[in-house]
């Protein structure tokens, strides 16, 4: 324990230097002196330029993706605060919608510009985390509004951005707006992985609904998670990330199933405010499994 704590900051500092500082300082060194008469050096100079521009682009997309992840997470947290019966729920949903729209306007547009005329699969790894989190947020919002699952074409059209590139001079309204369409391609695998994360949010929502006493919602949420799960088990090895996510999905599903079970057989015996404690007890020891061994307490 102790030696580990001492070691870690040092390692990290070193690693960081090599990644960032090292790269850029070396870049400056080499721009000056190369032997022009040596053909090998001349070609490597070109490789340097090519590699640097590729890495820079990659880095820029990674940065944007990180921002998108953070903002999407915030939108999801916000959505969790919208209670079903709460009159304020609508305004919260609207606020989250605004947040997501803001992400599109400020971040996705830049990503789309970077990806224009590129093979997106070359840079997919750079923006995949942000994309998955964003898909999770958008589909969660969509689910709360419509109680249905947002499809891939819908998702794709959400990420087809219309950018108004009209030059905003002081003379208004007369200028014909120049609107260009940018797309952030959504590969189906990424969509699936986003949906897998969505089930985690649905599970959280279900458990929260137990605590607020809106028990119907818990039962309503069971089927969506189940049907997503059932569809997912049919997919083969399509992505390296999928097995892990499928595992989490399964656990989420079992948690909700266990909650429904408990509510069904014992819901009437307990006052509403105690149900959460009851559920927590069930999940504390069983590791999410349906093994209820506290029957004796009754």
């Amino acid at each position, binding site marked *: 324990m102790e030696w580990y704590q001492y070691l870690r900051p040092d390692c990290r500092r070193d690693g960081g230097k090599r990644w960032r500082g090292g790269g850029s300082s070396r870049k400056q060194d080499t721009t000056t002196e190369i032997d022009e008469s040596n053909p090998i*050096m001349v070609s*490597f100079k070109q490789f*340097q330029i090519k590699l640097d521009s590729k*890495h820079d682009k990659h880095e820029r997309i990674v940065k944007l993706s990180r921002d998108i992840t953070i903002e999407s997470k915030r939108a999801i947290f916000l959505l969790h605060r919208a209670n079903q019966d709460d009159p304020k729920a609508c305004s919260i949903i609207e606020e989250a919608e605004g947040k997501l729209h803001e992400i599109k306007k400020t971040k996705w547009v830049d990503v789309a510009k970077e990806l224009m005329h590129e093979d997106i699969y*070359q840079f997919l790894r750079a923006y995949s985390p942000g994309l998955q989190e964003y898909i999770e947020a958008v589909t969660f919002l969509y689910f709360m509004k419509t109680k249905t699952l947002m499809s891939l074409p819908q998702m794709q059209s959400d990420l087809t951005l219309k950018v108004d590139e009209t030059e905003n001079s002081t003379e208004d309204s007369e200028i014909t707006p120049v609107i260009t369409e940018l797309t952030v391609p959504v590969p189906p695998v990424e969509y699936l992985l986003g949906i897998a994360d969505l089930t985690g949010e649905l599970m959280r929502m279900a458990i929260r609904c137990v605590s607020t006493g809106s028990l119907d919602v818990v039962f309503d949420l069971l089927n969506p998670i189940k049907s997503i799960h059932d569809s997912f088990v049919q997919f083969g090895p*399509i992505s390296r990330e999928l097995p892990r996510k499928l595992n989490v999905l399964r656990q989420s599903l079992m948690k909700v199933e266990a909650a429904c079970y408990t509510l069904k057989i014992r819901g009437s015996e307990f006052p509403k405010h105690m149900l959460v404690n009851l559920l927590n007890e069930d999940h504390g020891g069983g590791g999410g499994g349906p093994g209820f061994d506290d029957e004796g307490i009754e």
Partner: protein
Amino acid sequence: MALNESATNVFSEIRSYMNAEQDIREEIRSVVRDLEQHGREMLAVMQMVHQPDGLKDTSAITTKARGMFEEVKKYFVLISDKLPENQYYRFHDHWRFIMQRLSFLAAFIVFLESESMIGCEDCAQMMGVKTKREEGFHIDLDDYLMGLLQLASELSRFSVNAVTAGDYNRPVKIAKFLGDLDSGFRLLNLKNDSLRKRFDALKYDLKKVEEVVYDVTIRKLASTTITPAPSGE
């Protein structure tokens, strides 16, 4: 619940997409398997230069290997035909390995022929592919560079065998070449990726060749000295 229907519709579409992708991958894999077999045969041909007989007549070997590159072109046409447009990197992993090996073989041939470094264009041309992504099926710059690094390892071994076969001048030339290659790679700002790891091995290859040159030099076996000034002999 409405989601049940929407989910089944949504996912059935994706499933057929996935199946289509699986089919493409299967087809690419089978072509790549044949290409890899062909690549191994080419490698076997090139390995003959390490034999004393082969060392004396490298041009016969390189001509033969060059001829075998013609068939490589056919394989790459087959692969590129199967690719959806602009999705090279979606399937890149399938042929990355063999492309690196082929680019090594091409670089080896060119080095034996002219003692120079193969250009990316020449390398691409030998395989019948492009150098730029915009132009179609191309060779990734990283794979070409990987080929050069593999060449460095092969040449360090080659220098040892050259000495054994009595060719004392070759290690000197190889050392010069690897030195240039090393300073070339030092120009690149490599990320912490596989290329970087492979590059870290270059210094050992260089060291090995330098040791061979040292052994040859102190025994005055090489006719050319390392210093470029004419020695009068």
